[in-house]
């Protein structure tokens, strides 16, 4: 029967997870997160190793490979508690992207060679599927991998490679066969050491001035054929599986709920000698509308979850979660920016680094780089298949247009 309550087991699990975040989430990383300071590579690695020690690293992996084997509800609870603790997400490229492809399609040898280091965060992975000019049209990729003895020789350029500047390895979608009927054919999934000669990484500075993404150039890069995952030419199929895993928790409801709660606190607080933002009718109306939309999204997310629990695969409906999830993030970014008033303007991305004295700080707001975040997250409705592409998917696969 319809029922919102958690089972006893689920409640116990929630307590366990809560206790974990209360006791094992490092104070210094928490401070950085709360003050909006960009995390260093070392922060991510340290945090992920802690997650791994407690078996929380590979949320979506099957138990046999060291995953949690959690139910969808458990994953939902974990994501919620993680957001409530404002703890950083794991870097997805290893554990959520290449990992599942390796354990699903890779040989025993590849599994043993790569999975443990992913679990233990010993190796930092980055993605190599997007290409300049390809945009949402992934199948148009041009990077070539030409067989030469026991090697592939890779030439081409990958882009939007997030945190590629830290990466030890990259997974590359490359053409091993150009003589194909459909563009989706002849693509292979190849693993590549970033230290291989011929690979160069060029930073891409994004709209808000940060360095998060990169362009990765391949010039006659020799990669052993042993690094091919699965069969040659089936890379497109593997890539789709990978993108589906990218979809886990795509709605980002838990984080948005956390941010909305903080925004309401902020709006209720009146500065000395000023008035509280929540008393401004238009802003208040936006808060209400946002709370309503977020509640709707949460339940659409839960309904998908329930469908998955009962064995149904997440269909193209999950495009709704991408569209609405990113709209919600962007709506919150907008409201934070508006709430900051004139203090949305200072361009001081680094003033919140831990070693800046309070005296040198421009703003003592708790949400520092608000406008920067707003600008940066305009990307959310563009990446991972733009929201226009998502609408095309729904039109075609749900509405039969």
């Amino acid at each position, binding site marked *: *029967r*319809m*029922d*919102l*309550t*958690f089972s006893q087991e*689920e409640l116990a699990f929630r307590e366990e997870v809560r206790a974990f975040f209360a006791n094992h989430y490092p104070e210094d990383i928490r401070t950085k997160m709360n003050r909006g300071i960009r995390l260093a590579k070392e922060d991510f690695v340290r945090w992920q190793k802690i997650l791994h020690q407690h078996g929380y690293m590979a949320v979506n992996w099957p138990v046999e490979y060291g995953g949690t084997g959690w139910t969808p*509800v458990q994953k939902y609870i974990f994501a919620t508690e993680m957001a409530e603790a404002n703890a950083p997400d794991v870097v997805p490229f290893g554990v959520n992207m290449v990992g599942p492809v390796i354990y699903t399609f890779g040989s025993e040898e590849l599994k043993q060679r790569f999975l443990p280091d992913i679990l233990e965060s010993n190796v930092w992975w980055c993605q190599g599927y997007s290409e300049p000019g390809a945009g949402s049209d992934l199948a148009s990729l041009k990077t070539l991998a030409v067989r030469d003895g026991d090697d592939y020789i890779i030439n081409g350029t990958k882009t939007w490679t997030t945190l590629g500047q830290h990466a030890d390895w990259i997974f590359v979608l490359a053409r091993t066969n150009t003589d194909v009927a459909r563009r989706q054919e002849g693509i292979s999934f190849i693993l590549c050491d970033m230290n291989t000669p011929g690979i160069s990484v060029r930073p891409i500075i994004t709209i808000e001035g940060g360095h998060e993404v990169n362009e990765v150039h391949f010039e006659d890069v020799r990669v052993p054929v042993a690094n091919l995952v699965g069969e040659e030419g089936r890379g497109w199929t593997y890539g789709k599986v990978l993108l589906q895993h990218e979809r886990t928790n795509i709605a980002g409801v838990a984080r948005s709920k956390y941010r909305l709660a903080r925004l*309401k606190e902020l709006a209720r607080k009146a500065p000395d000698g000023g008035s509280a933002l*929540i008393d401004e009718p238009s802003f*208040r*109306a936006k*808060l*209400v*509308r946002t*709370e*309503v*939309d977020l*509640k*709707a*999204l*949460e*339940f*659409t997310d*839960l*309904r998908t979850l*329930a469908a998955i629990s*009962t064995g149904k695969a997440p269909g193209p*409906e999950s495009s*709704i979660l991408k*569209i*609405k999830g990113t709209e919600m993030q962007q709506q919150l970014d907008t409201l934070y920016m508006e709430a900051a008033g004139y203090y949305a303007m200072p361009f001081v991305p680094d003033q919140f680094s831990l070693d800046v004295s309070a005296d040198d700080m421009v703003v003592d707001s708790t949400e520092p780089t608000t406008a920067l975040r707003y600008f940066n997250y305009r990307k959310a409705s563009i990446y991972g298949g733009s929201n*226009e592409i998502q*609408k*095309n998917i*729904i*039109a075609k696969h*749900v*509405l*039969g*247009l």
Partner: protein
Amino acid sequence: MDFSINEDQAMLQDSVAKFIANDYDFDSRQASAATDAGFSRERWTEFAELGWTAVPFAEEDGGLDGGPVELMLMMEQFGKGLVVEPFLPCIVLAGGVLKRLATSEQKAQWLAPLIDGSKLGALAYAEPQSRFDLTNVATTATRDGDGFVLNGHKAVVLNGGNADTLIVVARTSGDATDEHGISLFAVDANSGGIRRKSYPTVDARQAAEIYFDNVHVAGDQLLGDIDNGLPTLKAVVTDGIIAVAAEAVGIMQTLNGKTLEYTKSRVQFGAPIASFQALQHRMVDMFVMYEQTRSLLLHAVMMQDEDDADAARRAVAALKIQIGTEARKLGEEAVQLHGGMGVTWELDVAHYFKRLTMIDTLFGNADHHLDRYELS
């Protein structure tokens, strides 16, 4: 956490759905709507025989112990069929007050005839000046020996012209907008001093202006404690909101289906208009609006069984805000995409649209609930 319905609920949903699909065609619906009563009495008797009119009531009152889920399941189907029979005013509203406040004697006298379909009821709460404010009650009930005397004007009383029994919200003490001092009475609609102007509504329902001029009622027609009617009225209005929201969700799904069907068949400039991407993306938006609204409906329904009263109240307000904005927008889009045909009386789409639009007005429109929303 579970979103599935149980077997009995599935059976109920199924029986109503089958009835709507097989026995409730649009033409006879239009014929019923065109009568003075605005609905078909035979249909209503069928509803009673099928036990639907008994669903929301306790077993000891001859009901089937249905809750918010059952209400949602039925109303959603009624929405799809654009049902004009007075389930909302008679069963959800009038019945909703009686089941909560009436003594067993009062239930025998007033509620039983509503359940078995022999009599019709209505809830008279709004007034010309009250707009959507439930506490704004100018109609007075003044003590008169053991009984009371009613005076006042009730506005746009749904099913008010058809009703045999009126549940009347009147002020027994306090000022015009006090929360305290509101009482509920069961009144025979044909009592002396009652004058009714009844009329059809734009969405093919029936309503009436009802004037009370020194209407004498006995003491045992007071329902529940004197002066303390507001909490019950609010609870009943919550049922009402869930009911019309579920109806709206049924209508949204129907309109989306009909719009898809039409745009796929309608050829302009040599191609079906469903092939135009601008229209495709708008139909996708309509689909998303529908899914999001259904989510808020489920949320509001499920929160009724949780024990967080504030959250439950917010959930209902959120639902009504969504209906008054997204559902209405969806209706306008459905008509627009139907072109000229969408604004003709002949096409059912126009009538789904009108009902969907007027649902915003019932029990306070989106603005009303947004301006009063209690942010968590």
